[in-house]
């Protein structure tokens, strides 16, 4: 839908210097939104910036008619967005895109790189509600980045969280993919092989830098578990009309085609994505 929704709060997340913000908006979009979808936001009243800004939906509360967006101030658009105070109306287009697929049973592992955790938060909440076993593997530069990216919100969900940081300031020192690898091996021993188990008992959803998502995809495919990734591209229309946000996909036959991140995504099956496509 295209609608003005009221800002409930737009506050600093963690310490100010990292420029992370939590934005809660009230309105009917909360009824429709599904995990992995995003909204296309008009950040200001003038022609500068001209285009809308896509932001993932990090939490959905249909009862209170509230959606929560977590964002990092990157440039002038998000800078302007951070100035929007409670009571002010923002024009939203959404919810847009196809979200994550929510398995009806089994385990769901979430793998996040940095602020890639934002869209996964809504998925985690939904999966818990569904009674799935959910784990979060989350890697970042250091403790403060994770803390400022909503770690507290995750802890509220009360699910197992495994952290890694490059500087070891919290969790395991190193990459989140290393963390994931250990657990995948462990899991392989402890539980039925993908082959044995008819339908997959474990699914993975990842969001983060492209390189990280590619690595996670490879890991999961090797282990035999299905993986979904949430992609980012520069967007104009958000509706599949401008072809600005395409990603290159290939089918089993290696036949390549374009898909639109805004409309066909932002969530795709890891194996169909052609990472760093040359064309």
């Amino acid at each position, binding site marked *: 839908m295209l609608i003005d929704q009221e800002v409930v709060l737009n506050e600093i997340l963690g310490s100010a210097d990292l420029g992370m913000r939590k934005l809660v908006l009230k309105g009917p979009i909360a009824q429709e939104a599904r995990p992995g979808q995003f909204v296309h936001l008009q950040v200001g009243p003038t022609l500068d910036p001209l285009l*809308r800004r896509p932001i993932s939906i990090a939490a959905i509360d249909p009862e209170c008619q509230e959606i929560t967006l977590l964002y990092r101030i990157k440039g002038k658009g998000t800078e302007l967005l951070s100035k929007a105070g409670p009571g002010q109306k923002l024009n939203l287009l959404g919810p847009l895109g196809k979200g994550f697929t929510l398995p009806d049973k089994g385990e769901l592992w979430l793998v996040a790189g940095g602020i890639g955790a934002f869209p996964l938060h809504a998925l985690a909440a939904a999966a818990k509600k569904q009674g799935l076993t959910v784990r979060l593997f989350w890697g970042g530069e250091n403790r403060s980045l994770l803390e400022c990216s909503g770690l507290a919100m995750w802890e509220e969900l009360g699910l197992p969280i495994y952290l890694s940081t490059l500087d070891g300031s919290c969790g395991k020192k190193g990459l989140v993919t290393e963390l994931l690898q250990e657990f995948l091996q462990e899991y392989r021993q402890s539980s039925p092989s993908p082959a044995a188990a008819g339908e997959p008992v474990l699914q993975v959803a990842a969001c983060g830098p492209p390189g990280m998502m590619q690595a996670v995809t490879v890991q999961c495919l090797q282990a035999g578990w299905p993986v979904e990734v949430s992609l980012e591209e520069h967007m104009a229309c958000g509706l599949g009309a401008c072809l600005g946000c395409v990603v290159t996909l290939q089918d089993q036959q290696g036949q390549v085609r374009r898909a639109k991140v805004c409309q066909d995504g932002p969530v795709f099956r890891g194996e169909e994505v052609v990472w760093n496509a040359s064309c």
Partner: protein
Amino acid sequence: MPPVDFRTPLAGLNLRNPLITCSGTYGFGEEYQEYCPPEALGAITVKGITPEPRLGNPLPRITETPGGMLNAVGLENPGLEEFLCSYLPRLQKLPTAVIINISGFAVEDYVQMARALQSDCGLAAIEVNISCPNVKHGGMHFGTDPQSAREVIAAVKRETDLPVIAKLSPNVTDIVAMARAVESGGADAVSLINTLLGMSIDIDKRRPFLANIFGGLSGPAIRPVAVRMVWQVAQAVQIPIIGMGGIIEWQDAVEFMLAGASAVSIGTGNFVNPRAPLTILAGIEQYCRKNGLASSRDLVGLAQR
């Protein structure tokens, strides 16, 4: 007070109203269904079609600029055959005029497509894009040399019985010469303007922002150039003008019509406000009322007098 008469005769078509959507900014008519359905518009123009399917340019393809945006989509499209099989059937059902936009890299490309596009196939008109600046090779020169522009249009006219709209590039020294050339080539109307050739550089990566290096500049930033060209061409040719370039608000549309555009087309404006064409139509109605004009046709070229 009687409702404002929006009927817009244009190049042999009878449009419901003067609002059109720009090629490449409104998809194939389905994408905006929820916000601004084709039925509400005078006409819609589909994404540029080429003889063969194209994957288009690598990413990034778009970036924002002050008051505008750059795009280098590179004519990604399903190709003529696929368009006719998979897209046209649904488009035919629309109670709105559908304009197909065709692009090519040789006169033969245009001729081949024109041959397959006749009035019986359910399309309202052919918009010949001789100016899409995004494709590295060719394309550009048809739009910048009057003689070849004239030839392409004449060749297309010979092949089809559909009205032919010539879409001109603003990246020329003399837009009037281009307009006269396509008029003499038999064009039934001109679309003004396509994007200005531009680029921007990512100062962190220290390389061009777009994978294609160059892109087409669109949006409000280019409106003064577009209005100027509509004004100049309106004084020089007899065929009607479809005005486009940075129309966001209804005031912008009125500006184009006062300059001499018989219809206006919304492009980047759709991205800013998916309901833009409807908002603009309502605004034009208000303006006509306020100024005691019975028809939106009365606006055309009013500032020229």
